[in-house]
C-alpha cells in the first residue's frame, strides 16, 4: 500500500492525487493531515509485511491436506503473525 492509498482511506472526498497534492471530484485541492496519514501507514504496515511473507496459497493448501489445520496455523501462519505484530 502506498501513501496515496491511506490518503484515500482517511479522506473519502479525495479522488485524485498528484504527488503530494490531493483533489476532489471537481479538481479542487483537498487539505489533509500528513501526520495522520503516516500514522495510519505505520499502523497498517504489518499487513503488507505479512502478506509478502505468507507462503503461496497452493503450498498452504497442500500443507493443510497433509498436516491438518492446527499444524498449518502453528507452522505457517503464527510465525509470520508473531514476526509482524499488529501496529
Amino acid at each position, binding site marked *: 500500500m*502506498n501513501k496515496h492509498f491511506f490518503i484515500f482511506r482517511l479522506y473519502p472526498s479525495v*479522488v485524485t*492525487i*498528484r504527488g503530494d497534492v490531493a483533489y476532489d471530484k471537481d479538481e479542487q485541492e483537498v487539505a489533509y493531515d500528513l501526520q495522520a496519514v503516516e500514522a495510519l501507514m505505520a499502523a497498517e504496515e504489518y499487513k503488507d509485511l505479512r502478506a509478502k511473507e505468507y507462503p503461496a496459497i497452493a503450498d498452504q493448501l497442500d500443507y493443510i491436506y497433509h498436516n491438518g489445520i492446527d499444524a498449518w496455523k502453528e507452522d505457517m501462519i503464527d510465525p509470520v503473525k508473531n514476526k509482524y505484530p499488529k501496529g
Partner: protein
Amino acid sequence: MGGAMSSVTISGDTSGSIILQAPAVSGSTTLTLPTTTGTLVTSNAMPTGSVLQVVNATYAVTTSNTSGSYVDSGLTASITPSSASNKILVIVNQLGCGKNGNTYMLARLKRSSTVLAVLSGGSGYTNSTASNNFGGLGMTWLDSPATTSSTTYSTEFATAVATNQVYVQGNSENSTITLMEIKG
C-alpha cells in the same frame, strides 16, 4: 578549387540554374560529396518516412485515481508538425502502474481532447482485493494530426471500480512519451 568565389552557378540542361552559395561565415568549411551515384537530400525534400524531429518528455510524479472518470496521468508532450501531411509516431511507456482493491486500470492515449487509442482495458486485474503493482503499459501509435499547429499528446487513466485506487508512476518511476514527426 581555390579562389574567392562566394557562389558557383550551374546552368540547367534546358533552362534555369542551380547556385551553390557559400554562407557568410568566418573560417572555412568542407563539404565532401558522396562517391556513389544518387540525389542529394535537402531539408525541404526528405524522403517519405524520414524522421524530421523528435520530442521526448518524462514524468515521475506518482498519480492516483479512485474515480471512474479519466484524469490526466501527467505524461504529456507537444510537437508542431512542419507539414499537415506528415505523421506523428507516438511511443508511450507508462510505468509504475498498479491498483489497490478489487479493480483494474483503464487508460488511453489522447491528442488534445480526442481519444486516439485504448492503452489499457483491464490491466492489473486479480479478481481479488490484493494490491498489484503490475508494472508498465506501452504503446506505439502512428497518428495523422493533419495540422501544422502545436499538437499535444497525453495519457489519462481511471479505475474500473470506483473508490478503488489505481495509480501510475508509483515509486516515482519515470514514464516517457516520445513524439517523432514522420515525413508523409
